[in-house]
């Protein structure tokens, strides 16, 4: 794999490096999921339901105190689960602030209400109701995104998929998602190898037209490999008795700790709904 700090000037370098980045993100997530933290010890089903139970009042709350409280709960859960604040800051908090900030930016100027400030030179009026709307949006998304990322970082993806069964997601859907997750890495590695081998035989920079041609031909080859792989996988499934129906083994049993945490999530959620009306 390419070293992370190398200069990523060319098209090939950038593409190959992005494959490596994708793989590194996954490896980090799986490493965090194996850490000895609070959320890691929870049954994935409880975690999924608990996180959902916190996201719903965060989305519905009309009080900064309640939203701030839910955000604080998310931060505490992150700390208790040994999730790095640096990672949350880079991947969630700054990214969400920039993204939702752009969406929320017009709100203070266009929302009618009590004018609290005028922008110097431009003279645009900022209303308190507009600031409140923008603040709600940013805080809601920050809280919800933090909780979602916590779920993903503290749970192996396979367990997240299995936990979807408690939300009545069909077995066949869970299985297809699991297989997609399994093979996306194989194809990612195949794509990475393709770009690396091409790069190793290349001298100089590619023109825009050549880049497009390389991208199109690589996509074609990868598509062809995917078709071959899918028919082989189907044969392998048939070979072990697959006849169109999918079955999975029932998950593990809930422990008393899981029930206590589920009750805790429910209480916090109910209280947030009550005070955030």
């Amino acid at each position: 794999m390419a070293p992370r700090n190398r200069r990523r000037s060319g098209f090939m370098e950038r593409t190959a490096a992005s494959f490596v980045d994708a793989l590194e993100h996954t490896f980090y997530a799986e490493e965090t999921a194996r850490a000895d933290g609070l959320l890691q010890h929870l049954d994935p089903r409880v975690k999924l339901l608990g996180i959902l139970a916190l996201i719903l009042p965060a989305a519905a709350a009309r009080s900064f105190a309640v939203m701030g409280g839910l955000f604080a709960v998310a931060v505490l859960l992150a700390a208790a689960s040994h999730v790095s604040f640096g990672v949350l800051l880079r991947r969630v908090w700054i990214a969400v602030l920039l993204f939702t900030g752009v969406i929320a930016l017009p709100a203070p100027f266009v929302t009618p209400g009590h004018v609290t400030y005028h922008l110097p030179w431009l003279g645009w009026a900022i209303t308190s109701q507009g600031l409140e709307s923008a603040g709600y949006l940013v805080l809601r998304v920050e809280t919800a995104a933090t909780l979602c990322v916590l779920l993903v970082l503290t749970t192996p993806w396979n367990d997240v998929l299995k936990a979807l069964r408690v939300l009545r997601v069909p077995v066949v859907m869970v299985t297809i998602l699991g297989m997609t997750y399994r093979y996306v890495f194989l194809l990612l590695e195949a794509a990475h190898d393709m770009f690396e081998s091409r790069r190793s035989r290349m001298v100089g920079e590619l023109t825009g037209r050549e880049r497009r041609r390389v991208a199109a031909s690589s996509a074609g080859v990868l598509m062809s490999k995917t078709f071959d792989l899918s028919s082989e996988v189907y044969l392998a499934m048939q070979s072990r008795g697959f006849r169109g129906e999918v079955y999975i083994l029932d998950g593990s049993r809930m422990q008393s700790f899981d029930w206590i945490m589920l009750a805790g999530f429910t209480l916090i959620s109910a209280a947030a709904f009550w005070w955030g009306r």
Partner: protein
Amino acid sequence: MSSINLNAAEQPAVYEVCDVTYRYREVTALDHLNLAVKPGRRVVLLGANGSGKSTLLRILNGLCFPDEGKVHFCGKPLTEENIESDGFGLEFRRRVGLVFQNPDVQLFCPTVFDEVAFGPLQLRWPDEQIRRRISETLGMMEITHLKERSPHHLSMGEKKRVALASVLVLDPEILLLDEPTAALDPKSESHMIDFLVRSKGGGKTIVTTTHDLDIAEDIADDCFVFHEGCIVAGAPPAEILSDLSLLKRTDLLHSHLHVHKSGEVHAHPHLHQHQE
């Protein structure tokens, strides 16, 4: 066309392949092939790449069906209709297991545990029995520590062992192995060979494809040589391996440059066999 039966007079065959031809569009992979596999025998199909060995394994596993000729499994015709029927089809899948050459094809589940559980779940075994069998099989293959791992985190040797475990969990009577030692490091290869050597006398019928002459004698009772979709020879491995002109004719004997102690460098066909 070839017609070779080893020990034909002794027992009824597990597989009878009668005059089978299989084509991939214009390319003939198997050409009027005849073969009988007896129960409890360890059979090796030797042949160079593209000689039709893997195609035959897929036919023996009921994954594809001949364009011409017939295959019988324990006296019953191995047809698409029979494979799709509930009674024969499920029984066949329980009794016959195929380990693919490329383990990435076979390891399609998110974790090793799910992978090994897939076969028993398809056959609707009770959950408790499935868990017990998985535990036994992982222990037997010495991969218990890998059970929560994703296949993309495993080495090639580990993948091959998991692929084998995913088939052995059903305790099949007939095991079809497609190039089990291909692309393995020496340690993983020795694990696989140990398994095949230990299986002697275990009652399983094992059909292995390979072009590795070094392992044929250790893992086989019967040996068939493939060339361009035909079986050109069938005999005990020692006999096949001593026929250098046959091995050279079927592209199984290679020659490469090597250096002698005297410093002389030359190339000639040779086997890498251990001396007793």
